[in-house]
């Protein structure tokens, strides 16, 4: 306890003395720094802030020190979050290196692989993307066809991936390739890392219903990966892939279902939807004027609170030494659906003002929400559709027959 207090005091002093002034008060989703060689940082000071935090192991506080992590307990990581929030600083680094491939490498990587890749993740030098889905392998991921053959100490890759999140801004990709076409479909898959900066890799953004292009198609034409970047051995990729999906589910549930409204509004009103409803439909005698909307806001707030309590229960249970089970599928389903329901309730509250795409007659906030609503529809598709998650629960938790 005293240790934690000392840690907090030291961190607070460090942040107050050194955190770039331009980033203070800038917490919020659009200030996330993803690192890497290609993408422009969201703020001129983002890179510097990341580097100064990485030097102290604070970009990946719970990872082992020998790979550039902080070697700290989860409680200390919580303190870091709180101290960042105190100055309304954004997290120093975010992205799929920290949330997906990093934890997977720590679990499955060789010493050499960890020493090469993890420090570069921690320092924000490499931005990662995920090469899983293919045009004909969505929910049925194991039927993927992107092929790889071994040539000496290299792997030659041909095929196509799709729904590569931020593929156009990433430096390296972790991908699944078919290395044995004759084995059962789950058994002929290899998990490999590839440097995307080569002529055999081409990335094209896909425009979505929200107008944004967070996803890409990635084409491989005799692209080359190093054999030493194969994780957990040839044809053992499916186990690694599933473990990583667990990390991905937790991330999606946390980001989208964590239910803190956009813009880091932790310091804002406790029931932001109620405030919004008051603003749009008025207030009668201290109540949201429209009783149906008021009831829907109450329902939403309660479901949100209950979801957070369930996340807390899961965390408390793990802290008490219980192993996490397939129950984590419930967070992905419920968290993403909760987010969609919140977006839709927000549309209902705004009424016709929710319809703006661009230009006059709509506020910036209204225009932005049109896009976040449309974006939210993807939450129950990406990272394993809700239907796939329900199958997982039915099979692994309820043990219902195939």
């Amino acid at each position, binding site marked *: 306890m005293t240790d934690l207090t000392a840690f907090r005091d030291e961190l607070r002093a460090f942040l107050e003395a050194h955190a770039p002034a331009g980033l203070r008060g800038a917490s919020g989703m659009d200030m996330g720094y993803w690192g890497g060689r290609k993408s422009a940082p969201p703020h001129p000071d983002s890179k510097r802030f990341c580097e100064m935090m990485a030097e102290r192991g604070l970009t990946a506080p719970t990872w082992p020190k020998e790979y550039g992590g902080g070697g700290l307990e989860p409680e200390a990581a919580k303190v870091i979050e709180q101290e960042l929030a105190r100055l309304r600083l954004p997290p120093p680094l975010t992205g799929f290196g920290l949330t997906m491939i990093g934890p997977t490498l720590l679990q499955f990587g060789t010493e050499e692989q960890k020493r090469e890749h993890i420090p570069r993740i921690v320092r924000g030098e490499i931005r990662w993307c995920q090469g899983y889905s293919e045009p004909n392998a969505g929910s049925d991921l194991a039927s993927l066809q992107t092929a790889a053959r071994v040539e000496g100490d290299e792997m030659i890759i041909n095929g196509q991936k799709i729904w590569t999140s931020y593929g156009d801004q990433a430096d390296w990709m972790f991908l699944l390739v078919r290395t044995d076409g004759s084995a059962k479909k789950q058994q002929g898959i290899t998990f490999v890392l590839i440097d995307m900066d080569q002529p055999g890799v081409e990335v094209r953004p896909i425009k979505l219903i929200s107008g944004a292009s967070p996803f890409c198609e990635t084409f491989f034409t005799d692209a080359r990966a190093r054999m030493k970047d194969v994780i957990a051995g040839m044809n053992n990729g499916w186990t690694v892939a599933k473990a990583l999906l667990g990390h991905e589910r937790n991330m999606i549930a946390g980001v989208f279902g964590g239910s803190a409204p956009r813009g880091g509004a932790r310091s804002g009103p406790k029931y932001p939807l109620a405030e919004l409803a008051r603003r749009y439909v008025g207030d009668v005698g201290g109540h949201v004027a429209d009783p149906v909307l008021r009831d829907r806001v109450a329902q939403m*707030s309660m479901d949100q609170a*209950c979801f957070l309590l369930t996340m807390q229960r899961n965390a*408390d*249970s793990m802290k008490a030494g219980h192993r996490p089970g397939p129950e984590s599928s419930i967070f992905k389903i419920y968290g993403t659906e909760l987010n969609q329901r919140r977006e839709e309730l927000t549309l209902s509250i705004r009424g016709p003002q929710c319809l703006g795409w661009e230009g006059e007659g709509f506020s910036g906030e209204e225009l932005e929400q049109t896009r976040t609503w449309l974006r939210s529809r993807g939450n129950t598709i990406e990272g394993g559709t809700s239907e796939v998650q329900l199958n997982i629960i*039915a099979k692994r938790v309820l043990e219902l027959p195939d």
Partner: protein
Amino acid sequence: MQLVLTEDQTMLARTAGAFMTEHSPISRLRKLRDARDERGYSLEVYRKLAELGWTAIAFSEDDGGLGMGLAEIVLVTEAMGRALAPEPLIPSLLLAGQALARAGSATLKQTWLAPAIAGEKVLALAHLEPGARFDLAKVATRADRVTGGYRVSGEKHQVWGGQLADAYVVSARVSGASGEREGIALFLVPASAKGVSSTPQVRVDSQNAAIVRLDGVELRDGDLLGTAGNGYAVLADAVDRATVALCGEMLGGASEAFDRTVAYLRDRKQFGVPIGSFQALKHRAARMYIEIELSRSAVMAAARALDEGQADAASLVSLAKARLSETYCQVANEAVQMHGGIGMTDEHEIGFFMKRARAAEMTFGDAAFHRERFAALAGF
């Protein structure tokens, strides 16, 4: 607040579950129902609960209790809910008992609370009046001042555990109009007092409920809990605690109905395969699982919030009751649907859960009532 069971709590949950499995199959409730048993529960089983110390859980050591709280009570009521055990733990100890513990005089506690904790006497809270719906302040029963005491007249409906109870905690009005929170008094009224009568009500869930009529019942000042006119807070507090205990029961009932349904989905064959292999049923079962998991968090949080005196405890109670009302009814409806025709028969036990789910939903406020209360507490 830690949302995880301690070792002692895990042990208690296990003991309670084992006890109920041994002593309370659903066939027991069926027998009591079919015999039109006036009590509707077994005094013998009830006394065993007391011997195990479960009637003493939620009381301070000063009151002769074990000094534990709702976090433990909900483990016992969950086990009871799984077994649909009709023993009046909640009405006697969480409703009437908690009101006595909080506001009763030393004499009242000695005469009524101690034997209630020991399982020797059964108490009930007579508060609900016809047309009051879920409003605790809708009290038309009158308590007129007479020398040295009060004369009480009125009628209370659906008094849970009220038939053959030994005494009632009764809400009555000393001033103001029905619907006002001011002016309510709580009295301890022995069932044997002159002018008190009770008539059993036969409810869909076969649990003990009664109409309690008070016709000019003469009470002394010493029968008053706390001060006259300020009974609402005591009443509301007891009902909040009982609501959490009931949520524990509902969690148990929903879990049991769900487990039985999943077992049925694995066993029942149609078209040559187990019906649980059909995705339409799998997905609905998985959704029920999610709802039950969320419900468990709500119950644990509400119990701990009240135990720890958290400022937002009342909101968490409403959160729990709203969610459990919806979860239990939804799971019970799905359970009957997935059992198909056999689920509609009286011979099959799954229907008992559906009936209890409705009764529990309508006790202490349904989901809509608690959403409204949540919104009001949140200030919107």
